[in-house]
């Protein structure tokens, strides 16, 4: 389904700010599986997601989805196969346009846009029905600007928009990180429902250990632009937040050890 092979990306290459954001990352994702990506700050987890979405050109490696090699495709072309929800609730919707207009654009994700009416009458009742499934009372506010809604409501709508036409791959980039706990809970529940109902192949980046153990059937832990652990099947089902935290702790301790040792070796031999 999704094949990521040997991708690498260096930002600001050749300058003092050089960052090896991704180093030779490879993995395959089967159809219908739900992969969680966790990692420390700057570990490359969001970069990995953006590499799949096509936000920037890769230095090395290939990304293919459903048999299409997308490596050279620009972002908007990949959108035909990919639905996305961003970390920032303001990113996924056009604030000065109505709920109905936003959803109508999602209903044409990846399709040619011509001079037909954006919101034909037939679409309107479908909009109402599908917005009602969010249980937020937004079905009566379809003509309100999205900018008047809360972050949680926007993320719920963005999720609905990303999955309006069934995507081959759903990308969720810490999509509850900017929400208050109650809204975050609500959006996570909705995420779970939609993914299960439509059997969506999903890549989700999260910072929450709770979400990481509760959701998904596979888990990748990133560190410094590489995959550190890949936990699947029964092991993933057994994993608890403490186990994951323990693994982070291991990484931290190893690095603390590394730095002074490197310094000592440097002093001795250079």
């Amino acid at each position, binding site marked *: 389904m999704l094949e990521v092979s040997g991708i690498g990306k260096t930002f600001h290459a050749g300058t003092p700010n050089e960052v090896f954001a991704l180093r030779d990352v490879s993995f395959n994702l089967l159809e219908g599986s739900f992969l969680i990506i966790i990692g420390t700050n700057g570990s490359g987890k969001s970069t990995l997601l953006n590499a799949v979405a096509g936000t920037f050109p890769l230095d090395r490696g290939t990304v293919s989805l459903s048999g299409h090699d997308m490596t050279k495709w620009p972002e908007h072309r990949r959108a*035909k196969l990919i639905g996305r929800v961003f970390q920032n609730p303001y990113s996924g919707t056009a604030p000065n346009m109505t709920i109905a207009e936003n959803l109508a654009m999602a209903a*044409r994700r*990846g399709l040619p846009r011509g001079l037909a009416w954006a919101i034909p009458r037939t679409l309107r009742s479908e909009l109402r029905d599908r917005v009602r499934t969010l249980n937020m009372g937004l079905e009566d506010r379809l003509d309100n600007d999205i900018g008047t809604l809360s972050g949680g409501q926007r993320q719920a709508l963005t999720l609905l928009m990303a999955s309006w036409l069934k995507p081959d791959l759903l990308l969720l980039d810490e999509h509850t990180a900017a929400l208050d706990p109650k809204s975050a809970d609500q959006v996570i529940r909705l995420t779970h429902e939609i993914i299960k109902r439509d059997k969506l192949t999903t890549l989700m980046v999260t910072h929450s250990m709770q979400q990481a153990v509760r959701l998904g059937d596979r888990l990748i832990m990133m560190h410094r632009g590489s995959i550190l652990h890949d936990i699947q099947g029964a092991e993933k089902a057994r994993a608890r937040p403490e186990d994951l935290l323990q693994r982070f702790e291991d990484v931290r301790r190893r690095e603390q050890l590394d730095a002074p040792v490197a310094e000592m070796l440097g002093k001795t031999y250079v």
Partner: protein
Amino acid sequence: MTLLLGASTVGLILALLALGVYLSFRIFNFPDITADGSITLGAAVTASLLILNWPPALATLAGFFAGVLAGTVTGLLNAKFRINGLLSGILVMTALYSINLHVMGKSNLPLLEETTLVTQSESFLGMLFGPGDVGVFGWEVNQRDAAALCLAGAMVAGVGMILYLFFRTEFGTAMRAAGDNPQMIRALGGSVDFILIFGLAVSNGLIALSGSLLAQYQGFADVQMGIGMVVWGLASVIIGEALVGSKSTGIVITGAIMGSLLFRLIVAIALRWGLDPNDLKLITAVFVFLALVVPGALAALRSRAGRAR
């Protein structure tokens, strides 16, 4: 009366400019200075073709498409070559100055004997009401002035309507979204580059159309006529927004037309009262500056007052 009529006609003609500026400045938030060149381009192309005895409708259409071309170049410079938006516009505007001189062959082209859209509508009006002055609400009005006003009004109404309907189509909503949140429309499969280039093409097409009509109305095209026009358009849009006080597309389009009309009338009256025409562009610039700054300053003042309480 002739004064008001003339001012209204120019106001309506420049409303097309205001609509073009609305498209680039307000929809895309793109400060498109190309306008100064493309309004002259529209005038130059139409005037030159009229002198070659082209049918006025075709010559006007050619003026429109010349503007479309200019806007496309600005869009390409910005979207494909990643040149800063302001600079892209300045480059094309500067290049257009030479191009306009080439198109016209000299710096001023008079259209005294040519058949234009204005003379055509004048004879059309003559057929309807017979020769001589036309009575409008009790005033006797020169037939040519009345014809020009009707022509400009019909043109603006048509363009405004088409624009309003366009913004409700699939592509039109995608265009508004591209200005509102480019990341979002990209994630939904819209090419922001293509949409921007198309939008700037239409914007400059409208601005060139405005220039084309202006040349036919005032009876000449001049290579200097575009200077400061983008600020004119912006002033009209801002007045329009203040008039209607709404962000909804249809209402803002009407507002921009009303703004252009009102702005021209104010200017005509001020000139009548003895305003030095040389100060006009300075006053326009100061006006736009105030219109941009005052609402923000007022809001800041209000919130400070609220906190003090």
